[in-house]
């Protein structure tokens, strides 16, 4: 009898889903224990995309760490950038000008729409509605093209800057964006005709992955994932940043806390974002786009580049009396145009010089003289020209350049202290916790990534449901593994 039981013994089927799997949205790995089609146990494994962004942040200056934030949630890179710069501005104690704030609100909402479109596309595809996927990508492509118009990049934008934004927006861009906002609501209706009242869609989403309000808060869920459960928590309302306190918008809140409510929340949120963009365009004030805060923000590039661009045909001349022969410029020169022995004045081979100014900025003794329009002249002529006083605009520009150099390389001087600043990215609450020790680099940079927090709720949502619901649940919590693993 025992033997028969041993032969007929049943056990759970252990299935390894991911890290390479079409429906795990990146490199999430789930180990499922299946009893037939029913999920008995789920163990998520993450970390396949861990790049150590928090550790890297400690070794980079505040400005240098900015592009790292694009690589966290690459689906809504703009929002991540904004989250970072808002936190750093608070740490520095500076305020971005009004125009920059409105622009940031605007592009942040564009990013929210593009994120939700990608979410809807993949979520619907996971559940089997293939057409929605392509419809969503059509509009997402539109937004990405608009991103390309303002900053030249589509995904990893790095458009906001500490204290403002990189470029001003043109009227042409605003016009095409306004056209988008006029068109977009009808496009949302198009997606909704396909799935909103579709019986199969309802069967697959209503009552799936239910989580109550108390539990959702306890799990630390944020964003639409939390609001689907009926908790009206939105950082844009609770602690407004940028221009969110000057635009009007509502926050969609669900009641059941199931996959369908979260889907509805995001659909309504897209409409709200669309409204916010329109308001931003209408209310966009004139003015500067970077804060006036010397040594805390990047110096204005146009003033600097006008004079110091390599095309300006400058020459450089080393004053032999001042040069101590420290060799700093020698190492800094990318063209190897500087030569000379240690502790003796160096010389420049003018024919190799690129005009990049690296040597000029590096020199601690100010031994290098800039000679406007001097490229291609002989040493003696240059020595002659070096005696003349340098125009003031050039000295100013070169000062700015040196400042720029120091700002990027060493970072600004920041007061000691620590702070946590949260922003509402499309996926939820993105928090940055900085500990500053007074140097130009953060002593500790902590990223509170919504995907990381949301991913841990998967076992809670999946256990007891069917395999197909696992896929629906991965979709509904809207995670991106780049952000989850950081």
């Amino acid at each position, binding site marked *: 009898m025992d033997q028969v039981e041993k032969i007929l013994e049943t056990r759970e089927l252990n299935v390894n889903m991911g890290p390479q799997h079409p429906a795990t949205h990146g490199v999430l790995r789930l180990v499922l224990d299946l009893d037939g089609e029913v999920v008995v146990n789920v163990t998520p494994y*993450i970390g396949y995309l861990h790049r150590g962004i928090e550790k890297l942040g400690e070794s980079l200056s505040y400005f240098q760490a900015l592009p790292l934030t694009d690589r966290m949630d690459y689906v809504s890179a703009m929002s991540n950038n904004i989250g970072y710069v808002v936190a750093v501005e608070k740490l520095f104690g500076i305020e971005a000008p009004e125009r920059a704030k409105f622009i940031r609100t605007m592009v942040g909402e564009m990013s929210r729409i593009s994120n939700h479109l990608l979410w809807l596309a993949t979520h619907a595809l996971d559940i089997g509605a293939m057409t929605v996927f392509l419809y969503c990508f059509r509009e997402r492509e539109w937004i990405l093209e608009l991103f390309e118009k303002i900053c030249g990049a589509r995904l990893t934008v790095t458009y906001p800057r500490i204290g403002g934004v990189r470029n001003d927006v043109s009227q042409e861009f605003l016009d095409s964006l306004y056209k988008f906002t006029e068109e977009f609501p009808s496009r949302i209706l198009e997606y909704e005709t396909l799935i909103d009242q579709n019986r199969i869609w309802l069967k697959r989403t209503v009552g799936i992955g239910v989580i109550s309000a108390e539990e959702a808060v306890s799990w630390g869920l944020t964003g639409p994932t939390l609001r689907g459960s009926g908790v009206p928590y939105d950082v844009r309302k609770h602690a407004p940043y940028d221009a969110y306190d000057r635009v009007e918008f509502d926050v969609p809140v669900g009641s059941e806390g199931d996959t369908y409510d979260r889907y*509805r929340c995001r659909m309504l949120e897209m409409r709200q974002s669309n409204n916010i963009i329109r308001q931003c365009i209408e209310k966009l004030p004139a003015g500067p786009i970077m804060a006036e805060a010397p040594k805390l923000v990047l110096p204005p590039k146009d003033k600097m580049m006008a004079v110091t661009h390599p095309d300006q045909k400058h020459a450089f001349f080393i004053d032999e009396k001042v040069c101590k022969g420290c060799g700093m410029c020698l190492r800094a020169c990318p063209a190897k145009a500087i030569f000379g022995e240690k502790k003796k004045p160096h010389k420049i081979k003018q024919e190799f010089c690129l005009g990049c100014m690296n040597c000029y900025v590096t020199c601690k003794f100010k031994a290098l003289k800039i000679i406007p329009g001097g490229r291609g002249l002989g040493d003696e002529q240059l020595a002659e020209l070096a005696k003349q006083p340098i125009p003031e605009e050039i000295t100013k520009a070169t000062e700015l350049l040196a400042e720029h150099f120091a700002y990027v390389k060493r970072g600004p001087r920041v007061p000691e202290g620590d702070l946590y600043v949260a922003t509402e990215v499309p996926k939820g609450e993105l928090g940055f916790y900085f500990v500053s020790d007074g140097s130009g680099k953060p002593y500790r940079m902590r990223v509170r990534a919504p995907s990381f927090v949301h991913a841990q709720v998967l076992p809670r949502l999946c256990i007891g449901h069917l395999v197909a619901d696992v896929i629906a649940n991965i979709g509904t919590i809207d995670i991106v593994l780049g952000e989850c693993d950081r």
Partner: protein
Amino acid sequence: MAVVARRISLYPAGIDPKEIAEKIKERFPEEVVEVTEFRDQISVIVKRGKILHICRYLHDDPYMLMDHLQDLSAVDWRGKKDPRFEVIYNLYSIRFRHKIRLKAQVPEDNPRISSVVPIWAGANWHERECFDMFGITFTGHPDLRRILLPEDWEGHPLRKDYPVEGPGPEKEWHGFVEVLSKAKELKPFEWEE
């Protein structure tokens, strides 16, 4: 089924964080080491012993209701402060919109602190990450394993004595070495100098 876009009616902002700090001090006079302020954010540095009680109080007290654990992480103050580690709790009340930051001191020789998972289920992975990155053990945690790094990784990367560029070529993680040798074996032409 009923999702409505509605204008959030916010409760008036709750208690001033300074007051919260005072209340914690009142209630746990032995525990509070220091209260600091930076850019309107109040941090309460506490001893690690009664952290669970303090959190329980902040979570359950009807005037506090710190139901949202925004973030849990740690800071390594190697050579700058003693005790070496601080575990940071960023707490927020969704109802009252007030927040406070707790910092629990954890010494280097015995890096243990009680887990707050019984209070906030969401602390689970945060604590696992802390364990992974700093080597701080959370007692009472249901499933304390490494989370981002492989199970058999050596060292705790976010500690200040861990080099940014990694452990170096000699001490490379064995999994990576295996993958590398396999790749060289299968596609030798891609690895020729």
